[in-house]
């Protein structure tokens, strides 16, 4: 399976996302923001970072790039799309996912090993988890507070489209402790925490077992691979 990782000016975790794809035994394909070309990939990851400095609104300028026209079209055809952090912000800015992300409640950037609950396993990116499973994934963002109007929140909850929820501590003031959501079809998932930083022992989050040993993030990428193989 070939998974594309888009690099925008200001993307930071693009190489990390490529590494995660490799660790999941898929083939990473570097995609460039200015191209109208997905190079025939089977899925796309929009990585974290500060595209265009995030100076206007996070992800706003990137959402209007050439490659995003293709990503939006592919998403509507059912291609698996994962937006991580800045990528999640791009997905809301391009209206592939509802709501928006605003400055953290505490005002400052926060980097921490975050406990999450997997709320939905019916998306392409979470089918390898068991429902209700608790996982630890690094989180690092300045504008990760998820907001949406009451109707949208109710819909997301009602349709089981809240995919990840913060547990124990809500690091950014997200409504309903929402850490990640999906579209109706379940092929598009966006989340603020960074699964690509929990894939390799020694470089992941601390867990109860040992320092930097968390690899829960790998299963998002494996899930996509397995769903692809199943089809």
């Amino acid at each position, binding site marked *: 399976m070939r998974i594309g990782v888009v690099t925008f000016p200001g993307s930071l975790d693009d190489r990390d996302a490529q590494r995660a794809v490799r660790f999941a035994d898929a083939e990473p394909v570097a995609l460039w923001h200015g191209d109208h070309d997905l190079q025939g990939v089977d899925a796309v990851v929009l990585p974290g970072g500060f595209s265009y400095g995030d100076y206007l609104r996070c992800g706003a300028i990137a959402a209007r790039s050439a490659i995003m026209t293709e990503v939006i079209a592919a998403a509507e055809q059912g291609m698996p799309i994962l937006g991580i952090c800045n990528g999640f912000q791009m997905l809301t800015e391009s209206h592939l996912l*509802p709501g928006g992300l*605003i*400055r953290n409640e505490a*005002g400052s950037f926060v980097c921490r090993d975050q406990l999450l609950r997997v709320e939905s396993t019916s998306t392409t990116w979470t089918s390898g988890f068991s429902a209700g499973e608790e996982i630890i994934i690094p989180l690092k963002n300045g504008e990760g507070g998820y907001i*949406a*109007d009451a109707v949208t929140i109710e819909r997301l909850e009602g349709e089981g489209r809240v995919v990840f929820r913060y547990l124990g501590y809500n690091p950014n003031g997200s409504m309903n402790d929402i850490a990640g959501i999906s579209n109706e079809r379940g092929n598009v998932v966006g989340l603020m925490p960074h699964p690509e930083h929990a894939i390799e022992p020694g470089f992941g989050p601390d867990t109860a077992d040992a320092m930097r040993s968390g690899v829960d993030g790998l299963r998002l990428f494996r899930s996509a691979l397995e769903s692809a193989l199943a089809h």
Partner: protein
Amino acid sequence: MPTIVVEVMPKAELLDPQGKAVAGALARLGSSTFSSVRIGKRFELTFDGPVDDAVLAEVKDIAETLLSNAVIEDVVGIHADAL
């Protein structure tokens, strides 16, 4: 050169953590006059030529599609600056 000002505010019904933080700071500094603070953005777009309907229409379009995100923000004002 003429400047057009676009003003964007977070939607009233949604959270504004930055505004809340400033309100908190005001309270700590002993000012109790203000019951709430909200923080939005003010864009100044400079261009060459007359401020006519075509330019205003273009600004309106830019304000609604790029400068603001209608899901979380409202454009509250567009006007030529009286500089």
